[in-house]
């Protein structure tokens, strides 16, 4: 049983703790801003090797903050490359989370930057190829359910850096173009090409290249750079290329050529399309025909009028001759 003195002391501590937590909770500001630097870290390591990397967190808020650090695996399942954090690593061939050591909480002064050191300990049994995780930072590590004492949502705000680790070894590097198209017939530009790349590799790839456009006379008329962006293994990634050409006059050919990987992989494909202002040409033709028709009609009308006048003159001459003969 607690003595009265201990009870008073305990009560005082509880009250002080409540007052302190209320004070800190109430001192929250109207917005939280933080920055992860860089946006990606790319590391290469051998099985069994331990490598390190540094990332940074900037506290853009006007007050000192503590940040929780989270390491999560992620997958990419859409064509836009959205990294989706996954909590379970079971069956994830691309998992990296369990190899990374990082501090759990870091303090950052107002408007200051904190360097976070990461250690990647690659197991001897690691599969060669890409392994992916994200490190994210969340302010208010003490924020927990029950704090609000009313019906409420608590918001966790995280920003982070994507971590790519490539384990060296025999890595398959293969990709294919699953789509490269534009409208078959385009009256006027700009011409937008849509494409997608399927990464069949054990590691992410970053295809880069050009779309070269040849005109109706098979002459090269444009060369447009293409950057697909990183493509997660076994995922399709879409891209768009715009040719800023307004007018054309026939059938064109677009050759897509992309290089990818570290062993000189090349992807190529071609499409044909028409760039021709058909409606404009038809309108112009109609206008020309209309003008010509009007001219012809006016000419015919003029000739007819002339003939009528000549006929009237002839009749008058005839009448005049008859009058003279009667005299």
């Amino acid at each position, binding site marked *: 049983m607690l003595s009265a003195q201990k009870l008073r002391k305990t009560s005082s501590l509880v009250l002080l703790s409540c007052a302190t937590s209320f004070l800190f909770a109430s001192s929250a500001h109207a917005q939280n*801003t933080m920055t992860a630097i*860089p946006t990606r870290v790319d590391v290469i390591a051998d099985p069994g090797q331990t490598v390190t990397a540094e990332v940074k967190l900037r506290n853009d808020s006007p007050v000192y903050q503590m940040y929780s650090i989270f390491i999560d695996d992620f997958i990419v399942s859409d064509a836009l490359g959205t*990294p989706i954090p996954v909590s379970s690593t079971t069956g994830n061939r691309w998992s990296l989370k369990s190899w990374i050591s990082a501090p759990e909480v870091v303090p950052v002064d107002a408007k200051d930057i904190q360097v976070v050191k990461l250690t990647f300990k690659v197991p001897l049994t690691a599969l060669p190829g890409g392994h992916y995780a994200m490190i994210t930072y969340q302010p208010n590590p003490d924020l927990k*359910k029950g704090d*609000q004492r009313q*019906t409420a949502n*608590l918001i*966790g705000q*995280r920003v982070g850096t*994507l971590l790519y680790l490539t384990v060296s070894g025999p890595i398959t590097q293969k990709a294919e173009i699953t789509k490269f198209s534009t409208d078959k017939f385009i009256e006027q530009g700009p011409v937008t090409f849509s494409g997608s790349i399927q990464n069949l590799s054990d590691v992410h790839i970053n295809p880069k290249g050009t779309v070269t456009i040849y005109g109706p006379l098979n002459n090269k008329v444009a060369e447009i750079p293409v950057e697909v962006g990183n493509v997660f293994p076994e995922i399709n990634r879409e891209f768009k290329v715009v040719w800023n050409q307004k007018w054309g006059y026939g059938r064109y050919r677009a050759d897509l050529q992309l290089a990818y990987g570290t062993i000189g992989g090349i992807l190529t494909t071609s499409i044909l399309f028409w760039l021709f202002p058909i409606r404009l040409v038809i309108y112009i033709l109609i206008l020309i025909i209309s003008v010509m028709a009007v001219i012809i009609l006016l000419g015919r009308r003029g000739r007819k009028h002339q003939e009528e006048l000549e006929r009237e003159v002839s009749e008058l001459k005839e009448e005049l001759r008859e009058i003279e003969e009667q005299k």
Partner: protein
Amino acid sequence: MKNLKYLLTVLSLVALEFVRLLSPTSTQAANLVSAKDTLQSSRISWNGRVKAPTIAGSAHVWIYTAAAGIANSITTANLAPGDSVEIGGTNSYVIESIVDADEFTLTTNLAAGDADDTDTIFFRAKPQHIVTFTTASAIADGFFQVLLPADATTPNDGDPDDGGFDFGGGTVTVTPTNASGYNFLSNAATASGTGQCDAPANYHCFEFHYSGVGGNGTAIELKIGATDGSSTPIAPSPANTTTGAAESYKVVIKNFPNAADPSADTATDQSTVAIGLIETVRVSATVDPAITFTIAGVAAAQTVCGTGSATDIDTTAGVNAPVAVPFGIMALNTFKTAAHLLTVSTNAASGYAVTAVEDDQLGLGGAATPFIIDTECDSGPCSHTAEQDWTTAANNPGFGYSLGAGTGSTMEFSNANTFKSKQFAATADAEAPQRIMYSGGVSNAHTGYVCYRLSIDATQTAGDYENFITYTATATF
């Protein structure tokens, strides 16, 4: 009548301007894009000492292999034949050859007084700085400021320093290049610690004032120093240099509005770039790729997620604001709506994505059960992957969210007319986080709104219900 209309128009404009001045909009500092400080040469300076048996009348020089004070150069690794070095404080000599790690020879003999023990030996590296970047905002009639790191103790004595660039002991030439919207009028170069160049400490200040409307996305080039080394800052001679390893320094570039005090005011836009100094290898570093994420509260009575989405709750203030949505006491069969503003900036070329997930449904006291269900919307069921209208509170209890367009970003679903809603994906139900906002390219303060809505019916057990919603912003893959 015509005069009256004119007068009313003028008065309205004056009134609007007055209101604008009373409630100025807050601006978000942005990164100057593609910022670089490219050095004419990345060589560091050299600061060593003469050692016996060096004697006057000889061209052979020995150096100390131990540092003393800022005389950090203790090997000949960073010297090369042809370098002009100052020995003894006055006379200059040209190095003819490097003998070994602590000896070199000169093309002429040392004069009397230049061969004394511990006489100074300086090689002054004076690279011209070409600072380039792309503007992030149109700031009319403003100025750029470039801050070059300086030594804390002797930033302007004309000798190489260990802590930063030395101003050179005189003036520094600064040369901006005019660009569309930027007609440069006057420049100023101020040594660290003099005039108003005192905050932040230990930086030399270079200001480039311009007239013109400015521009967003305009390429700017500013030069500090000259290619012949005259009136040019002296590169540092850092301690503990390792041959082949770059010494990194941070250069700060800022864009201020006219009449701003750069030593006290916050720049409208700014970037910090790293420059590397190293022997013989030219190094220029770009801005660190970064992603910045902000969550801000939204006041009550704001309609940010389509018709009928006016907020009842102010998320800008209160306990844990802005990272809480305090629904408080709920009336039966009545909506309560709140909102947050999300802002993302990144210079990642592939863009960014923001995902959202809740730990579980709103649980009594934060526990798993009993709980307020995630909404099924009006005609339902909406889910964490499919949105539906949710405009009637009665008989449609639950918790859900909607999205509202901001600027620059693409929101995951449109909310042009109604309070279209989804459930938050729930970790407890093994649902993957869902993307709510994204962009496929570089973004400068892209914004978007998330609106939260809650309705309960009479069957709901009384008590406080809580859950945890997590937003994660990263670059896209």
